[in-house]
Each structure stands twice: as C-alpha cells, then as structure tokens.
C-alpha cells in the first residue's frame, strides 16, 4: 500500500508538508524524489494528521519544489541493517559505507530509535575500566555501562583525550573494547584524526565509524548517534562485546535539533532549544548500560563543547542531569601546557564509589585525600594572590606546593603514557609526602604505613 503523492504543498527549511495523504503513520519514513533526479532523499513523519503529513527531511531541501516532487510513504520507521562485519568499517552519518568496502549483509534490521531498557532488567555497572589516565582512573573512575561525557570548550584537546581513552581502555580481565564512533558535524580534520588514530594503533579493526562532518546535511546529525548506538547495542547484547561509544560533538547535535524545532515554530525553551531537549538527549544517553543475563555492555563517552566554556548552558546542563558524572576540561590548565587539561574539581563520576572498592584497598582514601588537599591548595593559592606568599603559614605553603605538584605530575601525563591504577595510586602517595602528616585525615593509618614509602 505504498502510495506516491505529488501533493507537496509547503517547504520550510528541513520541513515538507504533504497534503491529501491517507494512512500515514507517525515516525514513518518518507522518500522524496525530484523530477529528473534519480537520487531519493529520506525524511520521516513528524506529525500525522488526517489528509496532511508534516515530514522532516534528513537531507537538505535545496532544489525541492512543490511542483512535481513525489513523496512516497514507506510504511515503516527508520531501520538499519546490523552485522558483526561492520567492525573495521567506516560509514557516513546515515549509515552508508564510505570506505569502498564490500556491502554489509545485514543479520538483522533494527529500529534506530531503540527501546528503553527496563530498569528492572538492568545490571548495576561496577566493573572498573582502566583508561590509563590518572585523573579518570583514580579520581573519576569510569565503569562498564556508564555514560561519562567530556565537557570541553572550543580549542581544547578533547579529541586527543577521547582517542587516548579509546586506545587504552581495558577491564580488569584484560579484555579489549570494541569502539563505536559517531561524529556529528565535526570538521573533516577531526574526523580524519580519529580515523588515522584508529588505523595507527590497529584499533580500527575493532571499531565502527559513523562520520557526519560539518559539510554533511545538518538534519542527518539527528540520526547519526542513534544509528551508532543501535549498532553498539547489537554488538553488545547480541554479540556479547563490550562496546565503548564515543560521540562527538553533542553540541552540533543539539543545534540540529533546535533547527528542526524552530522550523516547526514550537515554543522554545531556554536559549531557543526545544523544551524536550532533556527527553531527547536522554533517549541517547540512557542507551548506555548493562543488561542482566547479557554478556556485553555499552559504555558511552559523549563529547560536547560548552559554548563560551559555560557549564550552565542548556546542552552541558541537561547532559549533566542525565549522565553519570562528567569530565570537565580546563582552559587554564591547557594554557599552562598541561595535558590532559582536566579540571579536577568540577569533574565527577557517580558510579565511582562502588568501583573504587574493586581496585586497591587504599583507592577510597587516596581519592578523598587528593581531592581535599587539592581543593585546599587551590583556595590557598587564591589567598596568596591577595596576601602574598609571605603571609602564608608553613602548612598553607605545603598545600600550595601540593596543588602545583599535583597539576604538574598527577594531572599531566604524556599522550602515550598508559598508567595503571596502581601507578596512579602510588603517585598519589608520592605527592602526600609534601603535606604535613597530621593533615592526612582522609587516608587510613595502616595505609599510610603500607603505601607511603620513604
């Protein structure tokens, strides 16, 4: 019952209205064909009314006219064919191969919207993932099945950090991750960087890449992360792999969403973003997790650039309400030449408390002590700016030295430096030597004896 209609009556931005239609379903896929053009453009139904369908195109509407354009309703929602053979391949943002490789023969066709995981069927994530980055492993521990975004800013090296994590990530049993990478509206260079990084380290054969670059259609970006996550879920729950999903850049995604919302003349929420931005982002982020009785897991590292480094901007703000913590990048540390320029104090991993118990006995204490001492050191540093260093007490000066050393030795590490969690913890003990012993309140006495080597 696929009918073709020639009744396109209005085109506005990415939205097309088709009149006189029958039996149109909400979210149904639509093929739009221009006269004399062999290529079809895809869209989906945003609003199905009697005799009238509002269609959102995934591609631009340039050249589409109300005269002669044909719209065909496919009677099905957007699906993607998935297969284990997708590993090692590169696709565009709509899921079509980009690498001249063989065509993918799908083992299954799956709706890209996914279905919510029943909270009752979830398994609580607590398997520690070692990323080789001290500020993550020790201070903001990542676990399998978590969603931990990187809040970055324009010009900060979040891509390097993400590549570093993807390269190093391993769980305690030593197994590697399959990586699903979704790029939304990033520049060609950024996409190429990831591609070459994966090729260089041989990780590509364990990775699936979906690339929607800045030059690709804006609206396609709304589907790209969903396609990536659909493939990730398939690999995790059907094929038993541990999958790490890196999505970049969610800011571009949210902007695409705003564009559609504005074209629909919806009542805007904050800063013109649609009121349902939270719900929409949640349908992406919540697809991370573990499921009882299934071997695999989906771990997400979404990257977003905060406009003007403003963490209260709706995109990072709503993201933070959904994700289980955040790794915040600091422009100040970047200026000081520290890589990775993690801003330790506002960073957080909500799932860390259980994960910390599974590493080394002193992890909890070292974590708490590092945070407390660094926070105090930072306060004293501010004080010293006003009063001058001479006005500081000996204790205060020790804390300030600690803060400096912490940034220089603990946060800073070489891009190819893969620190084990034990290394990160030992390094913490090394730094504690700077502090007066009486101030080590958060670590246990017997741990001091055991781990603080003179």
């Amino acid at each position, binding site marked *: 019952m696929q009918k073709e209609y020639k009744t396109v009556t209005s085109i506005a931005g990415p939205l097309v209205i088709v009149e006189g239609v029958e039996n149109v379903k909400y979210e149904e896929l639509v093929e739009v064909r221009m006269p004399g053009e062999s290529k079809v453009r895809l869209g989906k139904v945003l609003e*199905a009314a009697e005799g009238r369908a509002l269609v959102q195109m995934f591609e631009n509407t340039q050249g589409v006219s109300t005269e002669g354009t044909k719209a065909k309703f496919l009677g099905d929602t957007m699906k993607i064919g998935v297969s284990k053979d997708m590993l090692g391949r590169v696709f565009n943002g709509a899921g079509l191969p980009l690498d001249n490789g063989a065509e993918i023969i799908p083992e299954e066709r799956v709706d890209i919207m996914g279905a919510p995981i029943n909270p009752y069927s979830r398994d609580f994530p607590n398997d520690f993932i070692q990323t080789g980055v001290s500020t993550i492993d020790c201070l903001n521990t990542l676990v399998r099945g978590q969603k931990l975004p990187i809040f970055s800013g324009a010009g900060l090296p979040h891509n390097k950090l993400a590549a570093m994590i993807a390269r190093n990530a391993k769980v305690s049993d030593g197994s590697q991750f399959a990586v699903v990478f979704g790029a939304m509206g990033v520049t060609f260079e950024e996409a190429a960087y990831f591609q070459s990084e994966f090729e260089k380290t041989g990780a590509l054969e364990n990775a699936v890449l979906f690339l929607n670059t800045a030059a690709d259609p804006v609206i396609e970006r709304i589907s790209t992360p969903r396609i990536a996550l659909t493939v990730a879920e398939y690999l995790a729950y059907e094929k038993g792999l541990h999958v790490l999903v890196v999505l970049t850049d969610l800011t571009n995604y949210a902007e695409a969403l705003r564009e559609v919302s504005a074209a629909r003349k919806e009542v805007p929420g904050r800063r013109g973003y649609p009121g*349902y931005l939270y719900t929409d982002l949640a349908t992406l982020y919540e697809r991370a997790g573990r499921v009882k009785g299934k071997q695999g897991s989906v771990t997400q590292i979404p990257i977003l650039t905060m406009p003007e480094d403003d963490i209260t901007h709706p995109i990072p703000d709503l993201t933070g309400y959904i994700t289980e913590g955040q790794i915040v990048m600091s422009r100040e540390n970047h200026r000081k030449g520290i890589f990775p320029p993690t801003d330790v104090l506002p960073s957080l991993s909500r799932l860390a408390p259980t994960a910390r118990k599974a590493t080394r006995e002193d992890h909890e204490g070292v974590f708490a002590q590092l945070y407390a001492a660094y926070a105090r050191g930072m306060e004293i540093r501010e004080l010293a700016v006003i009063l001058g260093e001479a006005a500081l007490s000996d204790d205060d000066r020790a804390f300030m030295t600690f803060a400096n050393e912490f940034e220089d030795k603990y946060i800073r590490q070489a891009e190819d430096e893969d620190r084990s969690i034990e290394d990160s913890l030992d390094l913490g003990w090394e730094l504690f030597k700077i502090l007066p012993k009486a101030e080590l309140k958060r670590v246990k006495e017997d741990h001091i004896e055991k781990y603080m080597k003179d």
Partner: protein
Amino acid sequence: MSEKKQGTIIKVSGPLVVANGMKDAKMYEVVQVSNENLMGEIIELNGDEASIQVYEETAGIGPGEPVFLTGQTMSVELAPGLLTSIYDGIQRPLELIEQEAGAFITRGIQVPGIDREKKWDFVPSVKVGDHVQEGDVIGEVQETKLISHKIMVPPALNGNIKQIESGSKRVEDVIAVIEDADGKVHEVAMLQKWPIRVARPIQNKKVPKTPLISGTRILDTFFPLVKGGAACIPGPFGAGKTVTQQGLAKYCDAQIIVYIGCGERGNEMTEVLQEFPHLEDPNTGEPLMQRTILIANTSNMPVAAREASVYTGITIAEYFRDMGYNVALMADSTSRWAEALREMSGRLEEMPGEEGYPAYLGSRTAEFYERAGIVECLGSDDRAGSLTVIGAVSPPGGDLSEPVTQNTLRVTKVFWGLDATLARRRHFPAISWLSSYSLYADNVIGYRGKEVAEDYNQTAEDAMDILQQESKLEEIVKLVGMDALSNKEKLVLSTAKSIREDFLFQNAFDADDAYTSLKKQYYMIKAIMTVYYEARDVVEQEEFEFNTLTQLPVMEKVVKCGQIEDGDWEAYEALIEEVKTAIAKLKN
C-alpha cells in the same frame, strides 16, 4: 475488555493524539489507542474531539486508527501486594513487563498492578452485625514482616456487616458484605481503586509537630523536617540530590517509603533495586525493601507517563497513610514532571507562561504538595497518619529563579539548598547552611527538648550563629589575612571549621557514618560547642596564644567525637567534662 465505544484518530504528534467521534468521553478517562492498545488519558475535550496523552511510544500510529473508551478514569489499584513492588509511571510492575517483553520495554503491554492470583491470609477485626463507616478497618493482612496491611471500608460506604470472611483470600475475592442504611448490599474485596488525580478523603488535617528523623546531621539538627511536612531539594547536577533522597529513603523513620524516580537515570533505579533488599532498616533490622514501593519512569521512558508517575506514587502513599502509617514520599525529580507538563502543553498549543511552562504549573505544583500532611484518617477510631513529601528540583544551570523552583518554594516549608561549590570541595552532603531554611524549626522545639535534651535547641541555634559569623569573617580574612583577627574571632573560625568538618560532613557511602541518631547528633554538636562555650572567656585573656587552645590533646578527641558509638552517652559526657577541665586549666 468490552470495547463498545470508539473514536477515530485524526492527528498524531509525539505523545499527543487527537481523535474525533469522542462524544461519550469524559475528562481524564483512560482510553486505548489503536489496535495496539496503547494506554492513554484524555486531557482535553472540544466538541467531539478529544486530545489524548499517550503513555507509550506512538511511532507507527496514524490517522484513521481507532481509539477505545474504557469508561474509567486513570486509577491505581490498591491492595496487598503493593509493598516491595517496582512499577512504571502507570503502575505496571516492571518485573511483569520483563516477563512479557524481555529486557527492553516494548509497547501495548497490559499487566495488572496487583497480582490477582496470590493468596493472602486475611484476619478480620469486625464481626457480623457490627456497624462500620467509611475508612474503618475491617481486617488485616500481614503483607511483609514489617507492615500489616489494613483493609478499610471504601470511602462513602457506611452500614452494617452482613458477612465477613477470613483466611486465605485473593485480592478480588469478596471478604465482607456491608448493608447500608437503605438496605442496599455492597460486596467488599481487598482490591480497591482510586483515581490518581483526586486526593483521598480524610477527616481533617493537623499541625505537624514530630520531626521526621533522617539520620543526616545537617538536616535533623539545623533544618528539621516534620512528619506530614513538605520539603524541597533544589540543586545543580552533581550536587547530591539523588544521594540525599536515597539517604532519606534508606534511613528516615517513616514506616512506608514511596520512591518515585521521575525522569531520572536507569542505573540509579537499578542501584536502589539491587541495594534495598540487602540493606537493613536501622529502626527494625528488616530489609528496607519490605517497607518500600518504587516507581520508575527513567528519562528515556515515555514522557507522558512521567506526568502520571508522581500522581500514581502519591495516591499509593495516601492509601498507606489512611491505614494510620507514617509515610514518606520522595519524588526525584519534580522538574522532569514539570517538563512533561510543558511538553504536553506545547503540543496542545496552549498559551505558554514563564519559560514555556504552562500557566497552570503553579496550581498543579501546589495541589501536589498539599496532599502532604498529618491527618486524622477516615474511620471511627480517629487514627492519625502522615504523609511527608520530599521533592527534588533540578533547576537549569542551578538557577533558582526558574519557575519550577519558585513555584515549589511557595508551597514547601523546608528548603534544603544544594551548593555546587560545596560539592566541588567534596563536602557532602553539599547542603548549604547559609541558604537553607526550615519553617518547622519552631514546631519541633517541644519534641526535641523533651525527647533529646533540653539544651539541644539552644546549642543548635548557637552553632548556626557561629556558621553565619564565619561567612562574614572569611571575607575579612581574604582581604587582610588571618593575623588581623582577634582571638575571639579566631575561636569562631576554628569552631565553625569543626562544625563543618566534624559534624556536617557526613559520608553517605560509609555504613557507620550514613545514619546518626538524634541523640548522638546532640552529643556531637554539644561536644564541639562546649569548646566554644568554655574557651570564649579564656581566649580573651591578655597575651593568650591561640595555638595553646588548638594544640590541647583533648581537641583530637573532639575531632573524632563522631566515632564514639551510638548509645554510649557516658563516653560523650566524659568527653564534654574533659574539654571543660582542659580549657579551665588555660585560665590564668
């Protein structure tokens, strides 16, 4: 279900479906949408056109498909079997959904909220011939080890017991027959229904005076909540709303907990689910799950069901309150509920109020929080029950001027403000002592003076005063340095530091530290404040070296006063005496 009346869909837009041919429909009636039987509720009627909010995903639904009327308004099922359940926003047990659909929630699943087959041992407490009125308890079922589920005469029914059963019964079995004054005979089963948007009837409300003890020191000592009160916890992400809410659910001294995860993280609900059956109730020693009902609508579950979830939760909570229990309800987070309202309002093309929220946001919020209270329940025994509501709010960007926070603050009397700066310093619970308040502080003076210690209120007040002074002195220190302060001011600062670090700081993940009894809280703050009281005069002596005070060996013990075991009051008394003697020795 006998599907007699039906209309036809004319428009689908996300969770909003418009249908015509709906002349027989009533407001808030439950309908089944399309042949997939998606559950929906009528939220607007216009001629024979009805706007329906659909509680499930509407992809693939289109105009021309049928809508079936059910004749019922959106209701919850109330009967033994509620406790230990985990429901979605419209009271479908998630466990049964898993059995039907597997790990991912598909749509059109119809499962009953209460198990119809399970048999319960019903013990009647009335006999044939007794006169009963609405709300009277006619028997009990031991639902879990902790809770005896009271079976009550449904509201608006009065009469004489004609027949009463006992023994093993299913929830739908008739357990009593009541003949009313007109001679009409009513059969009563354990299973009753109640519409979620209507508050359950009570005799009257009372003024709350008993504190709800949470075991969280900053809350109980400085910003107490009462049984039957309403509190609001706004805060930016990462400040610890959920940890605070979960702490309350674990340790507060209510008898029944209803926990609503409204538009929140799936993994967090899983954590609650996996943790609660293993955690012991500090008051009874039984697993916490036995007194708990969970409602989970995670952020990726259908948005309209999020709107319903808070009502589903509060109706169940009211039902247990009516039995005479102290019930506490946590809603995390009400902002997501408000956003669901906004989304539906937008699709209905209503005129928006502030920030796109509908103009009725304020009245809906007030309606919800007003369902809290300590009440005289229906029934001739005038039993009292209470319902305490604690709502988390997630203000965008932590900006408290936004409409949801402001509307909530207008109707709640306790404000526990979370502070991102404290959270960044890893001071938890990150509840700001400068901005939080409790208007119930006066209500509990009597209780605290009688049950804990006469000088508890005064000590707490003085401690708060010290914290306020600290914030001012800190400004001065920033400008001119510590040396410019007098000894007296230094004492304020060191006492404030002690209050913050040794009393207010509390580790929710440490089994021993997570809960502190009210009496222990009193002794801790008393020990810390004794240093201040005793040293006040001493430090003002001429040429007094302030360090001689801080270096007293007894100060070490004050720092660790929290480690003295709960109940060992003699040890606390001894410590307080020791402080007094040690400081007295510093006098010239």
